[in-house]
């Protein structure tokens, strides 16, 4: 297992290299550079700009620029944000915990919703409740997150005043206290609920169908022949089999969360990486953009790796060694 994991991690290196090249050239290909928008070209001496370009290495051959960027990158130096004027590393470290919290909570909600609905519907197929769950899920699947987000803000924040509509924490609370963590949880609650609920549909219907499939398998008949109670057959024999395909979704899930975070964070003005990404695009903050791009791609690779490893754990037929 460990060997397999190591091998897989090493196998990720070429992918990462490719990603870094794409990130680099994407940044090059985008219009303007970090100076555009930051420096007023009418009031600045063009010779000074040229001098700065030379100094910052913008005029070096492309491959030299690339290698400089990569070698700095692997040493943990992601450059300096041209918009915020602080190291990208610090910027990301500020935002990362918020996005992780949002993502983990969203995933948690997805699993809670999907498992409770999927297991119920799978065990009682073609009943009224099953149809209701199916309908509800198609509804969730159909609404775009920005519409759900706007509605949620309108009802729960403005009308009912239950939850805050922006930010990630109260300014008044002191960092590190219990109140501080509660406040953060409170701020992440609505965005993560929305993000989680919108990701539920595919899981629920998949789980439902897989449970129905499995309930017709021969091994279920064997369990019944042994006098095993129906509830145990569903909750242990069948569920244990139906979890296997769900686990492989995990990699895909991380992508979803990153995608979802982009939009959700923007709507809730939640200061996470998704929001940072959008502001960086607007500000043409290339050092930040490139770092985020590499990070998101890395997360996707990592998600797939985790899914593969979990697959080996939950399915005895796949033993990785």
């Amino acid at each position: 297992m460990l060997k397999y994991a190591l091998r897989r991690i090493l196998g990720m290196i070429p992918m990462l290299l490719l990603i870094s090249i794409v990130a680099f050239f994407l940044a090059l290909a985008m219009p303007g550079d970090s100076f555009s928008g930051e420096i007023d070209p009418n009031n600045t001496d063009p010779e000074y700009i040229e001098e700065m370009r030379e100094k910052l290495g913008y005029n070096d051959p492309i491959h030299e620029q690339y290698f400089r960027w990569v070698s700095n990158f692997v040493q943990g130096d992601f450059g300096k944000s041209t918009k915020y004027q602080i190291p990208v590393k610090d910027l990301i470290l500020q935002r990362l915990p918020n996005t992780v919290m949002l993502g983990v909570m969203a995933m948690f909600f997805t699993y809670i919703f999907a498992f409770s609905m999927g297991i119920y519907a799978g065990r009682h197929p073609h009943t009224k409740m099953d149809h209701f769950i199916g309908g509800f899920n198609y509804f969730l699947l159909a609404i775009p997150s920005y519409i759900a987000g706007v509605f949620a803000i309108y009802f729960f924040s403005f009308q009912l005043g239950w939850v805050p509509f922006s930010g990630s924490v109260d300014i008044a609370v002191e960092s590190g206290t219990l109140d501080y963590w509660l406040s953060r949880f409170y701020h992440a609650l609505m965005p993560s609920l929305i993000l989680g609920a919108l990701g539920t549909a595919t899981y629920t219907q998949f789980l439902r169908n897989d449970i129905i499939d499995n309930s017709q398998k021969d091994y279920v008949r064997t369990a019944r022949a042994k006098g095993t109670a129906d509830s145990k057959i569903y909750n242990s024999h069948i569920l244990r089999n139906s979890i296997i395909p769900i686990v492989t979704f995990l990699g895909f899930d991380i992508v979803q969360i990153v995608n979802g975070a982009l939009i959700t964070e923007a709507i809730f003005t939640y200061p996470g990486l998704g929001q940072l990404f959008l502001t960086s695009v607007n500000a043409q903050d290339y050092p930040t953009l490139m770092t985020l791009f590499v990070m998101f791609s890395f997360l996707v690779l990592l998600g797939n790796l985790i899914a593969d490893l979990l697959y080996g754990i939950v399915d005895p037929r796949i033993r990785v060694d």
Partner: protein
Amino acid sequence: MSKSEQSKAKAPLLEVKGLETSFSIEGKDYNAVDGVSFTVDRGKVVGIVGESGCGKSVMSLSVMQLLPKGIGKIRNGEVLFDGEEIQSFNEKQMNQIRGKDMAMIFQEPMTSLNPVFTIGYQIEEVLHNHFKLSKKEARNKSVQLLSAVGIPRAAKIVDEYPHQLSGGMRQRVMIAMAIACQPKLLIADEPTTALDVTVQAQILELLKDIQTKNDMGIVLITHDLGVVAESCDEVIVMYAGKIVEKTDVESLFTKPKHPYTKLMMGSIPRLEEDTEKLETIKGIVPSLTKMPQVGCRFANRCPKAMPECTEITPQLEENEQGHEVACLLYETSHPKEGVLG
């Protein structure tokens, strides 16, 4: 002993009366088992033979109440187990006797085990379902059972998963599971088809062993008349959901009556066929939706068919002492009082 217990002890172990099991196909119900009656006594082996698709498995699943939910159902008839009418039992009551008093070995060893649980877990489950046992006791018992069915390295196999085992091994695991609680009745649906000949003999030997020790009744379903001759006391020959002949093993082999039985035994040589294909019968069992409702269901394949065979339904009646047959060649099978159909 109370009165009811006395009558229980006297009643046959399994009594099936007029069993009709139907499957719903495109909204209509079709009988896969059509009015089957037989009994199994304690300590006896009853063989059920017949071609593929004649309803042997459906009949056993009906007895165990393991028909696929929503598709198959018992339409008519009674199943008495140990003197008790069990066809009206609910799921919970059935769960108390399934695995403990009546057990079944399924025809499909490759798919009948849960792929994600260890062999040990799956055997221990049936023990835990019916007895209060510690984990360790159950584990020891399952190792014992595995050795008893001839699995080498049983102590290691308990921790393995089904996919690590061959078909024959899995079949033995199924057998170990079925005999774990020493049931009174064992239904074995082709228990030896996945095994090679020497192993087949071992398994049959083993089943007989347990049977004599526990006075267990066995329903042995097989294609193999050799197995029947070897291990059965009584034989039921089924065709297209009905019993066509029922007798003790000796008279079946010495004087088979139904043309179908004779054909199966290859005792009717037919000139137009080469001698190698002696045992094969031309044609196939009709599908459920195409089953003739009047007349003998075998008529269209029967070398001895007469015109009335498609008009009069033969009755399964005793033709000789203890030898029942349903064929119009025998006077006893003609309906009484001239009732047709």
